[in-house]
């Protein structure tokens, strides 16, 4: 049996992390959490999470940044907002998950080849360049970059789409795609993307 110390020292904390999250729009409710677990109980994905949403909130509030950013919880959030609606303290739990996701992306604290993060990257890239999403192309990219086995397993899906006339290979693109790219670049320069 390999033993590891589970104790946390104060030096393991990133002091001010919790407060920095609580300052973001929609995350103001963070300090009022009473750790009742409604969010975890309500969450349809919580059964797969390494940390329950409640625990993530607890870690963020206690400034355990590394732990909060490296869990799979933030990536498994499917944005269904069930927790936000049910929270007795009206905490924007989904927003807090978003904030952590943004922070994790910025600090590259997610597993390499993690499909959710790759989907996020490919998705934003396609929108930025083309203005629209061509779902079938996006999914193909995702499978190629993240998990080629899944791509093989899903060959039937492609066939089905072709059969039902929904398989699009021509990339959709808006006329103002260049203009849109400039607009989006505008915010990058100032670093005011709303991300923490």
């Amino acid at each position, binding site marked *: 049996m390999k033993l590891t110390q589970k104790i946390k020292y104060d030096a393991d904390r990133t002091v001010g992390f919790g407060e920095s999250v609580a300052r973001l729009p929609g995350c103001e409710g963070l300090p009022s959490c*009473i*750790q*009742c*677990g*409604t*969010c*975890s*109980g*309500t*969450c349809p994905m*919580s*059964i797969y999470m390494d940390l*329950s949403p*409640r*625990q993530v909130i607890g870690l963020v509030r206690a400034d355990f940044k590394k732990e909060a950013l490296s869990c799979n919880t933030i990536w498994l959030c499917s944005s269904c907002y069930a927790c936000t609606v*049910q929270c*007795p*303290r*009206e905490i924007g739990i989904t927003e807090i998950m978003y904030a952590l996701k943004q922070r994790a992306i910025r600090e590259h604290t997610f597993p390499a080849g993690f499909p959710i993060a790759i989907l996020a990257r490919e998705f934003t890239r396609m929108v930025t360049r083309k203005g629209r999403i061509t779902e079938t192309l996006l999914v193909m990219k995702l499978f190629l970059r993240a998990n080629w086995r899944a791509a093989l397993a899903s060959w039937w899906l492609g066939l089905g789409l072709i059969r039902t006339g929904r398989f699009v290979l021509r990339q959709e693109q808006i006329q103002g795609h260049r203009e849109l790219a400039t607009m989006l670049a505008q915010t990058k320069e100032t670093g005011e993307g709303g991300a923490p």
Partner: protein
Amino acid sequence: MKVKDDQPLRIGFYVCHCGHNIAGVVDCAAVAQYAATLEGVVLSRDYKYMCSSPGQELIREDIRDHNLNRVVVASCSPLLHEHTFRTAVAAGGLNPFLFQMVNIREHDAWVHTDKAAATDKAKALAAAAIRRVARHRPLETTRAPIHPDVLVVGGGISGIHAALTLANAGKKVYLVERDPSIGGHMAQFDKTFPTLDCAACILTPKMSAVRAHKNIVLWTYSEVAKVEGYVGNYTVTVRRKARYVQEELCVGCQECVEACVFKEPKFPDRFNVGLSRRKPIYMPFPQAVPQAVVIDPERCIELKTGKCKKTCLEACADRHAIDFQQKEELVQIHVGSMIVATGYELFDPRRLPHYGYGRYPDVLTTLECERLISSSGPTGGELRLHSGQAPTAVGFVLCAGSRDYKTNRWCSRTCCMHSMKLAQIIRERTGAEVTLFYIDIRAPGKGGEEFYDRALAQGVKFVRGRVAEVSDCPLSPAEQGKLIVRVEDTLAGMVRRIPLDMVVLAVGMEPQANAQEVRRIMNMSCSAEGWFLEKHPKMAPVSTFTDGVFIAGCCQGPKDIPDSIAQAGAAAAEALALIDAGGIDQEPNTAYISEEDCSGCKSCVDLCPYKAIAFDPVKEKASINAALCKGCGVCVAACPSGSIGQNLFEDQEVFEEIEGVLAHA
């Protein structure tokens, strides 16, 4: 500046530190130094606790030693300690109204963080009071008589206890209850925590005592319609609803109920929260007081159509207690004080669709569960599912609707204990597995923690987590036909699905739906949540802002039976103190008319809500009856010739205050 009687002004100024409460934000020494420079101030001190005995003693000695003729104290709210300091001033030999108070705690130190600004504000307020007090004149209080009779509104355990206490002290009490019987929620309980003594055994003797007491006039099925007057002298109109049964003739034999043309009970029975049925003519519950039946006009065929065989009349025979002609009555009574004990309502869990109340028949409220395990309940005390079977697994969902920003933000204080009580009874009687889902177990008070211990020892399972959802969607064979609770077991650190037969929602307390109406009638205030507001949360917990009106029990906020009874006793004691004092000193803030200035325009006459202003048609002047004046000052502000003054709030006094607050930048 000179005082009216030509004595030079000698003002003593005191600024209180209130420990750190004031001194932590306001520089008290600086305020005292500043005040010392103001006109008329001969003595200026700062002191740690002005309201303490040494603080009061200081005022007394200074008045004597320094020949003070005015006193100003800058400390907390005058609503809290004005009386204290006036008494100290009087003890020093001065007229108590040659005093003014400055509120630098509630209105300054506690609400500001900028120390310089708060100190400036304290100086400005002090300057205002010093200017104002110079204008004060000696005043005398008048004493209003107190009518010795008391009205108690609400016949739950609080109202019952208050009424009995007063009646035992020899006072005449009117007890008015909205329902056809007294008893309130407590009558619906099986046992009471933490002692698990039988609720009926301790309540029904008190109910009977009310009925038998010669000093109590009990009016059930009645409501307070109107209150006029003021402390010591209230005129109350009570609406006595038609019961269609002569209460004093009915002996409670219930032969009429037996004889009713409805052979089977058909209508939801309120006492059993709809879990059983009753007829249009019914006894509210077996131990009801008064023991008199009542007819529901919405259900009775005779009252609805006039075409009934009236078998009830035959059954009642020569007692003639049933009276279809009975009409609602308005009765006027005179009392000197009132105790409001109107209780609470339960949260309606239909507002939480994810808990499935109203959708799944085996999702119940704690009160419904209470009736099911009560031997006087619809199942004779057998806990049964909708299907008639006995449950093998029961869950209690705590904080259903409580501690939730979307429903009720408050903790109802009793639900943890109430649920643990039901859990223990279920464990004892049925052996079913009982799980309690909780956020925090709140078992304070005498015997509370021991009660929690007992529940644990009895094998009640505790899962720390607020239930997210109750559903009937099975994901495994074990879940088939069950109610499934989805919850995070926060101590075990995992999400669980727990199949149960019965789910009991521990619903909290809410203010009565008509609380606002009652508040208006009684001229009280409500907290933001809708509970009746006490005058001071600690120092005057059963008084209200209206003198002579007291509150007791859950209408003031959620509480358990011992606390309700304690409060009811306290309210009764307050009323007794008022009555036995024989009278009440009235603040001498009445208005008066200077006859030579009155132009006789009569514009004040109609403004007065107390009809205190009379017009003398011969002299063509108005005059104010000080005994009737309540001191609002509406007439003073309205008088076009400036001929009306108000003691304690003279125009000149207010002008000095205005000038004072603006004098310091």
